[in-house]
């Protein structure tokens, strides 16, 4: 399951690193801080660029709007001009004698009609002069473009011509004020000419006004389309910048996340004791350095691990050899002592027999020391494999009690045994549990003075079996409670008992812990000690 997950992550990592952009970013010989700085500054610059572009687009739009304004002013002026010209034309048209007579055929007498006609012509003179004056060069409030100017010049000259025609040719034909008549045949051609001029004038002014209006319309249309294209450009650039920034961010982060994931995988593997792999980080930044250091650490750990294994193997071989080499002379020491002690080669006196016994028991002590040291070394080297089988803990306890009872009786110590009925079969390594039981029992008997008592009890509760060995010995001070389970350690109160290897409790603790159990001590100085070990009761119920 874990392997599956790891391979998935590894695959993912490879896929990412396969991306040429990510690879390229990863391989940049720049440190992470600089990369991040460049990415942030780059993103900020993109933002600034987008902002500036927006500014420019807005400015242009504003300029275009502003460019319409003078045009509009011009248009207003021109349309006024157009209105004046139309008015002039209309007035002159009205004043054509025939028309006037047609409108008012018999209503007014000829004198009145003449007066009226003269007033109209005088008004027309005034109007034509005003048009001429207002369109003369330099009279306008703005500078007209060249094409406009030409037309304006035409208008000016026509207006002048008209006013001169009216003043010099037509008006004098009215004669004396009392005999005013507009019905003079003489007047007709002049009047037709004047009317033509007024019509031209109006036509020119209209052209001018229309041209300007068209220009405004064109400009507005152009503004609208360039606003649209500016908007498209702005949105496009902004979107592009966004995508670019995101892409940069993604590529940059993957160029970092990929290596971090791979380094993490390798570290997890190292943590679980697998030193076989290396992590490949192409980055030439801090992550690359981190990857290289992880690899170096991995190699160093693998080297140390191999060395340790080698050392452990050497240790085991050394211990086996030591055991062999110590046992060989011990064979002669104990063997010859026994030959002498059994008087196979002649009688020995009492003192000699006692010394021989001492040699034999010391030899045997040495032998058990060798055995315990070897056992302990094996446990510590992790070379002990428990032979777990169901066995009767009750029987093991009974046998242990029998084994120490003889000696206990000799020393005046009473041994009591009581076990709950449900304490019987447990799963465990029988030989080693027996070793633990014997060790605790012999310790208890050893440290209990004559007249004392060793109380062995076994109970079953909360899924575990507890065996307690209580004695009425000197007790153990609290500060010694932990130390007592270490190798070659004795409590203050135990000093003086030279017997024992000093390894029994250390071994017992390790054996119990190998079973997933625990061992502990409760004691009070002067009131004895109770050693208890607990084993998981497992599935084997009695």
């Amino acid at each position, binding site marked *: 399951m874990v392997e599956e997950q790891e391979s998935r992550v590894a695959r993912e990592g490879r896929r990412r690193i396969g991306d040429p952009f990510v690879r390229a970013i990863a391989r940049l010989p720049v440190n992470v801080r600089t990369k991040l700085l460049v990415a942030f500054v780059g993103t900020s610059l993109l933002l600034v660029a987008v902002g500036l572009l927006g500014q420019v687009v807005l400015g242009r739009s504003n300029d275009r709007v502003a460019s319409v304004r003078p045009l509009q002013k011009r248009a207003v002026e021109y349309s006024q001009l157009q209105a004046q010209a139309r008015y002039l034309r209309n007035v002159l048209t009205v004043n054509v004698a025939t028309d006037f007579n047609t409108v008012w055929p018999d209503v007014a007498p000829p004198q009145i009609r003449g007066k009226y006609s003269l007033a109209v012509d005088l008004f027309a003179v005034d109007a034509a002069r005003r048009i001429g004056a207002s369109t003369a060069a330099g009279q306008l409030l703005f500078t007209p473009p060249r094409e406009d100017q030409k037309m304006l010049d035409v208008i000016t000259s026509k207006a002048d011509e008209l006013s001169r025609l009216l003043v010099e040719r037509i008006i004098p034909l009215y004669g004396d004020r009392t005999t005013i008549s507009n019905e003079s045949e003489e007047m007709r051609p002049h009047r037709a000419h004047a009317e033509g001029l007024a019509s031209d004038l109006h036509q020119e002014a209209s052209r001018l006004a229309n041209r300007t209006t068209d220009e405004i319309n064109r400009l507005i249309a152009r503004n609208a389309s360039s606003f649209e294209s500016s908007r498209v450009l702005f949105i496009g650039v902004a979107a592009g910048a966004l995508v670019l920034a995101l892409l940069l961010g993604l590529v940059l982060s993957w160029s970092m996340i990929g290596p971090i994931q791979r380094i993490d995988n390798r570290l997890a593997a190292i943590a679980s004791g697998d030193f076989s792999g290396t992590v490949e980080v192409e980055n030439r930044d801090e992550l690359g350095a981190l990857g290289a250091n992880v690899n170096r650490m991995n190699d160093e750990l693998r080297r140390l691990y191999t060395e340790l294994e080698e050392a452990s193997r050497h240790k085991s071989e050394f211990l086996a050899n030591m055991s062999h080499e110590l046992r*060989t002379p011990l064979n002669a020491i104990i063997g010859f002592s026994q030959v002498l002690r059994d008087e196979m080669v002649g009688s020995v006196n009492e003192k000699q027999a006692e010394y021989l016994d001492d040699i034999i028991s010391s030899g045997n002590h040495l032998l058990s020391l060798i055995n315990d040291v070897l056992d302990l070394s094996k446990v510590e080297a992790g070379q002990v494999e428990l032979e777990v089988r169901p066995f009767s803990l009750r029987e093991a306890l009974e046998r242990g009690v029998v084994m120490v009872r003889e000696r206990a009786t000799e020393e005046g110590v009473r041994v009591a045994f009581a076990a709950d009925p449900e304490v019987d079969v447990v799963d465990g390594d029988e030989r080693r549990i027996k070793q633990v039981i014997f060790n605790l029992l012999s310790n208890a008997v050893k440290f209990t003075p004559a007249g004392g008592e060793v109380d062995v009890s076994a109970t079953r509760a909360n899924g575990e079996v507890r065996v307690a060995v209580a004695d009425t010995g000197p007790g153990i001070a609290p500060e010694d409670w932990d130390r007592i389970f270490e190798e070659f350690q004795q409590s203050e109160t135990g000093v003086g008992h030279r017997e024992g290897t000093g390894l029994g409790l250390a071994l017992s603790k390790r054996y119990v812990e190998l079973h997933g159990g625990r061992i502990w001590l409760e004691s009070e100085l002067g009131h004895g000690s109770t050693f208890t070990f607990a084993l998981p009761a497992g599935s084997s119920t009695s």
Partner: protein
Amino acid sequence: MTGEQILVVEDNEKNMKLFRDVLVATGFRTLEATTGGEAIDIASEHMPDLVLMDIQLPDLDGVEALHRLRADARTATIPVLALTAQAMRGDRERFLAEGFDGYVSKPVNVREFLGTVREHCQGRVG
């Protein structure tokens, strides 16, 4: 004394002396070899009633010597006991599995040692 003949294979001089003296003192006759090769020669020549075989020997080790004795039809039926200072947990089972008829660890308890020897000699006589 009928005195069964026992071949003791042992490279340590003092241990050899101990086994020899104990066996002689209790009425056995002994043959001595200090190497595996020598043991095979002597065994095939004298056909002893029992072989006490040390394991760690200068030339071929006790296990190899046993296999050679068993390979030779004349010596194949001679009981062979492993008599060794290799006495770590599992060693007894290992040697019995190799084909030894018995296993005695050093240092020996002289009485138990004699008991084992007698047991295997009687087995052969019986």
